[in-house]
């Protein structure tokens, strides 16, 4: 036990001095998240605000039809009427950024509307993220006009508007905020921590296995009185802990990015913090432990097999996909923890976390996840110890 502690402390000190490990294990989840979320939300908010407040240049070609729309445009503060000579010049004006939207009435529009036929309006615009938000105002303008015309028709025909509404649906959704949040965002959180748990453990694993072989330190360590099992366990704890720290820091980074984000309204922020309660977080953390042990076993085994840092990296990079795919499947809507999915590693933790956040977790399934993950973690540790004991692996090539 003493040797395990000595090896663990030394390896921990060693990897914490490694810049690559620190960036992947600490900086990425802790700094990158708040940064990405803050920048992207600020960007989105700015886009939305400018799109909403922009004074739109709207052209209207009436073709001798009723001028109600034209008057509506003139009367609005957020729109300005722009002269458009003919329909052929619209495209060049929009491309030249002198016009945002142009409403063109068909020559027969009024006649058709009066004879209860369908009139036609052509709406010219150039779609973009920003313009699509602005378009909502034009859509509303046209929808209001359409409703006015419909009401006129009903009046002329002496009908009630209820004639076209056979029934009215009064929706009573009993879903709780927690359930809704869990379903929509619940899958995303485990997706992130599972991936960061893996990535955070990857570099320490490479460094403590293949790195040790490449530096030629493995030989001197093997000649020390520490047994191979002690060496593996000492290293194993470091890799496991790196995964756990990464996953926890992902949480902290996410929490900080949500909490420090001034763009999120206080009521929504309170709601998020209420939904992700302390109990849920504790239960999720207990799932991180076996998955980190499982990752540590796989990563260290591959790392011991490789002869160099580079070889280990090339072996482990495809492994990222093996982790990302089940974690991603867990984020898909409708994916739930069942007796079958509870036995699929990574996917089970992802789905269990989703269920915990939404409060819909089945305790029997959760127990199955724990049992299968702890078994798998134990197996991965045993395989890693056996693997490290093989001369063909340590002195391969």
């Amino acid at each position, binding site marked *: 036990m003493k040797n395990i502690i000595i090896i663990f402390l030394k390896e921990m000190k060693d990897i914490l001095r490694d810049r690559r490990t620190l960036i992947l294990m600490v900086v990425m989840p802790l700094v990158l998240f708040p940064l990405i979320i803050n920048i992207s939300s600020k960007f989105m908010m700015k886009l939305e605000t400018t799109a909403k407040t922009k004074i739109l240049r709207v052209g209207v070609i009436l073709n001798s039809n009723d001028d109600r729309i034209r008057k509506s445009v003139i009367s609005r503060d957020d729109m300005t009427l722009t002269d458009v000579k003919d329909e052929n010049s619209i495209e060049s004006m929009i491309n030249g950024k002198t016009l945002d939207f142009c409403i063109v009435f068909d020559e027969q529009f009024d006649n058709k509307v009066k004879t209860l036929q369908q009139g036609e309006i052509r709406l010219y615009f150039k779609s973009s993220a920003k313009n699509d938000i602005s378009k909502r105002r034009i859509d509303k303008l046209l929808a209001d006009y359409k409703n006015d015309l419909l009401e006129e028709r009903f009046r002329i025909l002496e009908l009630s508007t209820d004639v076209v509404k056979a029934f009215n649906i009064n929706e009573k959704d009993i879903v709780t905020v927690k359930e809704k949040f869990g379903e929509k965002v619940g899958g995303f959180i485990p997706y992130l921590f599972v991936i960061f748990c893996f990535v955070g453990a990857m570099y320490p694993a490479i460094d403590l296995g293949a790195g040790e072989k490449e*530096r030629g330190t493995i030989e001197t360590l*093997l000649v*020390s*009185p520490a047994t191979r099992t002690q060496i593996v366990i000492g290293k194993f704890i470091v890799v496991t802990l790196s995964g756990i720290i990464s996953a926890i820091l992902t949480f902290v980074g996410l929490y900080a990015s949500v909490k420090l984000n001034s763009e999120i309204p206080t009521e929504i922020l309170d709601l998020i913090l209420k939904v992700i309660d302390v109990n849920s977080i504790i239960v999720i953390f207990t799932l991180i432990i076996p998955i980190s042990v499982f990752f540590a076993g796989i990563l260290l085994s591959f790392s011991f097999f490789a002869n160099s840092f580079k070889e280990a990296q090339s072996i482990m990079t495809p492994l990222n996909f093996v982790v990302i795919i089940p974690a991603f499947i867990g984020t898909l809507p409708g994916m739930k923890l069942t007796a079958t999915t509870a036995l699929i590693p990574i996917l089970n933790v992802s789905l269990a976390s989703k269920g915990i956040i939404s409060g819909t977790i089945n305790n029997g399934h959760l127990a199955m996840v724990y049992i299968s993950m702890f078994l798998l973690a134990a197996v991965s540790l045993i395989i890693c110890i056996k693997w490290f004991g093989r001369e063909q692996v340590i002195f391969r090539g």
Partner: protein
Amino acid sequence: MIEVDRVSKRFRLSKKQRREMGENYSGGKFIQSVSDVSFKCAPGKIFTLLGPNGAGKTTTLRMLGTILTQDSGRINIAGLDTLKEPDKVRGKIGFLTGTTGLYARLTPEEMVKYYANLYGISGKKYIEKRNSLFDLLEIHKFKDRRIGKLSSGMKQKVSIARTLIHDPEVVIFDEPTVGLDVITSRNIIKLIRDCRDEGKTVIFSTHIMGEVSMLSDDLAIMDRGRIIFNDTFKKFKNEMTSATIEDEFVRIVGGEK
């Protein structure tokens, strides 16, 4: 004392390795690295294991260090069987190779302390041994610098301190001067002599003839996994039929047939 009795070791070859051996290779799935090797190293003497590359020297030394286990035969180190009590055997061995085997992100102080801890050396005993080694090797002035930033000579000094921190009875040097400059190599040669003078059992492998004549008390020549000469260095010199040690070595291993 080291006693090696009829030790053999073979390795399984991967398909790739078999392909790399060339079309003429017909040795099957295994390659015999060490065949029926026996020798004895006495305390207070330097035992030299001489041989060309691929002769099986490193495999033999790794078996002495319990890093590898022999397929057959018996190895006894300081009265302990390497298969029965490998952990205890390792406690009695100091192992130094040409590749320094140091952790770049640790300081010499931390590196030596790490190994002292693993060998169970602590407190006053550690301080005394560390100070004497750091004085002797002049490590004090760079003891707190990261090893990655040290010169190869400084690194080799740290390696020596790491090898000797637990005052081992048996010291194994596996081609310790490979790739080192003249001054650093001389330090190693001096260290090997010092170990002998302190009464330790010293075994070192080399393919450098100059080192053989400078250091050897006893000599074994290995070729293709077998011991083809095993006696005192004095006897080797007396029975030489060639003009130089190098010529005699080439003659014995049949290099110029």
